[in-house]
């Protein structure tokens, strides 16, 4: 696995989603984390140099350097251990995450929702994929992982408030079947089904809350584990289920990683069998 990831590292230090492509932030961070998971530091310093060089002036990261807009991938970069990323770079990333507000969480947006008789009390304290848009499940789950990890080392009221708001958002956007999809629970009043990958990621981000509240989600994640059709989904389910004390071992061999990121995620999830839990410790 590690040889495969190393061979796909670009000369600038980053990784693409597919072999031969230019470097993107997301697969680069997952590949760095896979290096930690596999106990291999080869290529790490070059990768972290690329990451440090691509941090935006506002403290966030863009999906790739040619897009001059910090987005949700900042949360991923904040998951890199601060002693390697750099304390200053890490702190600026955390500040960026604390400052980001979903477009539907502003006072004006809530007022508009109230005036149009929509549910203006719907918790919207999650994170968007892209600034200026609404909050969704995956960016909220990843931001929560970064802030929960930070709060373990440097607890503050601001972190705890934002974590509570984000977790409230995820619980409010849980599908009727107990899992999570992209973040739309109903479409014109009709229940929408969950997905395995978002169910696993949300479960991981909520693993420190009351387990009774999570029971339907754990049941749904276990059901998805038997019926998952993607390597990405299986990896997130492994991570989520392990975090709530229901570990599953090994990505099913029938599920092929389709991207470099899938390979890295599979390595990160499988490292849980060896006691390495990069997202929660």
């Amino acid at each position, binding site marked *: 696995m590690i040889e495969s990831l190393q061979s796909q590292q670009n000369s600038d230090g980053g990784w693409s989603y597919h072999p031969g492509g230019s470097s*993107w932030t997301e697969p680069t961070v997952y590949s760095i984390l896979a290096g930690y998971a596999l106990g291999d530091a080869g290529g790490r310093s070059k990768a972290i140099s690329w990451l440090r060089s691509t941090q935006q002036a506002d403290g966030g990261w863009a999906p790739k350097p040619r897009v001059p807009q910090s987005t949700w991938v900042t949360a991923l970069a904040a998951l890199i251990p601060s002693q390697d990323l750099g304390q200053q770079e890490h702190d600026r990333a955390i500040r960026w995450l604390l400052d980001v507000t979903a477009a539907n969480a502003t006072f004006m947006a809530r007022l508009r929702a109230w005036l149009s008789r929509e549910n203006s009390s719907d918790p919207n304290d999650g994170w968007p994929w*892209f600034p200026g848009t609404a909050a969704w499940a995956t960016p909220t789950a990843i931001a929560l992982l970064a802030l929960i990890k930070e709060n373990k080392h440097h607890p503050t009221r601001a972190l705890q408030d934002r974590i509570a708001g984000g977790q409230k958002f995820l619980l409010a956007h849980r599908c009727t079947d107990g899992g999570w999809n992209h973040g739309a629970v109903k479409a*014109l009043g009709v229940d929408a089904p969950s997905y395995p990958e978002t169910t696993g990621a949300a479960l991981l981000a909520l693993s420190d809350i009351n387990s009774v509240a999570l029971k339907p989600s754990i049941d749904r994640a276990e059901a998805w584990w038997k019926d998952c059709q*993607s390597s990405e989904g299986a990896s997130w389910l492994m991570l989520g289920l392990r975090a709530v004390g229901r570990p599953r071992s090994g990505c099913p061999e029938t599920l092929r990683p389709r991207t470099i990121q899938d390979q890295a995620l599979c390595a990160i999830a499988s490292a849980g069998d060896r006691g390495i839990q990069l997202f929660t410790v």
Partner: protein
Amino acid sequence: MKHERKQCITRREWIAGAAGTIALSGCSRNQPVDATRPVGPKPVVSVLRAPAYTQDLYDTMRRLLADQRLDVRGKRVVIKPNLVEFDRNTAINTHPLLVHAAFEAFRASGAASVKIAEGPGHRRNTLDLADAAGYFSTVPKFEDAFTDLNLDEISKHSLRLPLSKLRDIYLPNTILGADLVVSMPKMKTHHWVGATLSMKNFFGIVPGGVYGWPKNVLHWSGIDGCIVDLQSVPARTFAIVDGIVGMEGNGPIQGTPKQCGVIVAGRVLPAVDATCARIMGIDPNKVVYLNPPDRPHYNDESLITIAGESLHTVRTDFHLIKEWSELRLA
């Protein structure tokens, strides 16, 4: 003599003529040209019967391209189907057999390259989704022919006279570099815009790698305006709509399959979509994105040349949820 006299213009006649010209030109300044009225030859929209997903589709597609006189020799063609969910037994995704039939027809027509490309809006694992939707088992060497537009290399593209709030947008190089982009949507109702057809299908060219899953920036920029803006991005477009089995009710995901038995195709996407709307029993005059200001409208049937089946013989009213019941075509 009479004839000669007509050729001579007297001073009185010249002055009268000049005054008339000035008066008319003044009128034309006060009355702007109606930009919603199409100019040029009528677009041809093909409406073909296709009762089922059978091997006959391969011949149907070859005939379709010949009838449309689509010259793709030496061109880079990108086919953009609609892939949404992990399910081959519902009517959510464009059927893989129809996409493969189009793929082979374009190759047989002498295209330099034919690719299939899509960027689903909700699910990230595109290849797994395509596998579950039957694309791997239907299209030989599918992975070699396919590009995930969510994770493709990108370039910034400035929109010309956008209707939405977008001014520029990052788009996949596979789309920007294509000579012809073929939109192959499923004929479906849509809970936000009424119907999703060849124009709305272009939401899938917006890269999730930049904007996320869903591509919520399009909703915040105005869905209807974005539909109009995005369909004008590719250099040349063509549409082939999978209306063999469509989706009615609470589409585009939670609706129910609707047997309709048609393939609708053409070069002018608003004309194709207006025709599809009529077939579905939807009044195109009431679909917002088919009625943009300052863009040609093709909602009047007389503005389109229908090749193949006449619309009244294939009309199959799709069930409309109560929120869209006012769209019903009289």
